[in-house]
């Protein structure tokens, strides 16, 4: 593997010999440095990204962005949902009242058209 461009290198000073001594040196690192390396390794391992499978109903593209992720987002989503439900209930109630008034007016219109108004209409109160 290591034989390109080696030319006239003395037999005993080949790169392999140098590499062997460097390995020997790396094995003799002081304990303080080894402890520093161990801490560095632990910091890195705490930040390891783990492959997370997508939720089964998610397409895995953009829809997951719409779902709440934090507790605050869940609270906001629930408040929004309650507001929408209250609005819908108010709208339905208003519509029901409007239908009731509309029903009364329809009876009066029919009575006028058929000239079948009750006598009370023409009397002063």
């Amino acid at each position, binding site marked *: *593997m*290591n034989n*390109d*461009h*080696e*030319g006239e*290198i*003395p037999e*005993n*000073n*080949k*790169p*392999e*010999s*140098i*590499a062997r*001594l*460097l*390995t*020997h*040196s*790396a*094995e003799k*690192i002081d304990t303080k*440095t*080894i402890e*520093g*390396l161990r*801490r*560095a*390794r632990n*910091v*890195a*391992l705490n*930040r*390891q*990204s*783990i*492959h997370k499978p997508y939720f089964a109903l998610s397409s895995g593209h953009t829809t997951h962005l719409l779902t709440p992720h934090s507790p605050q987002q869940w609270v906001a989503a629930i408040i929004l949902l309650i507001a929408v439900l209250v609005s819908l209930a108010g709208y339905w109630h208003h519509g029901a009242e409007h239908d009731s008034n509309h029903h009364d007016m329809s009876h009066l219109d029919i009575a006028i058209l058929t000239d079948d108004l009750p006598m009370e209409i023409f009397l002063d109160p």
Partner: protein
Amino acid sequence: MVSCIAAGYLLPSHQKSLGANKLASPAELSHFLESVERRAYKQALYGVRNEQSALDIVQDAMIKLAEKYGDKPAVELPLLFQRILQNTLHDHYRRQKVRDAWTTLFSSFSPKDEEEFDPLEVLQDNSNPSAPSGPESLLEQGQTIAMIEAELAQLPARQREAFLLRYWEGLDTTETAAAMGCSEGSVKTHCSRAVRTLAKALKDKGVELP
């Protein structure tokens, strides 16, 4: 190559036949980092010549690997880590260059009392007579290693990277080129020059490796 296999990891060029693409578990990542952290630290130390900076660089490289590629197949980790380590080193060089420019600017107004790095200091430290005595061969080996490390630190950054990746980490020319972000021809040139410089330096000092 030998060191990687000994550490339990095969390089990508030797993994294709295995078809392994299992995602790295936390235990596998931990084992991998433990197997490469010392050599990574040494690589960084040769480049920056400062123990704390070297530790910071290795930690940055580990974090980047874990955060961005922690869910990659375990077999891809060695080459990915080398690429990240080299990029982190380059970032450090760039920041150092900017810092040096400002330091030089401001230090021109103050007396120079800082000493520059001298590889001879490393040699003196390692042959310190107050150090615990041992077999003569062990002492000689320590001196030789210190000499080699000092020469490595003196090499141009790209030559040092190519030499360490190619001959110490056991990457082939293609993988070294990928890790360094350059062509295979450049890798061969850098390696050739690094090997010749190191060999000449050792020869000049009368060192013959065992």
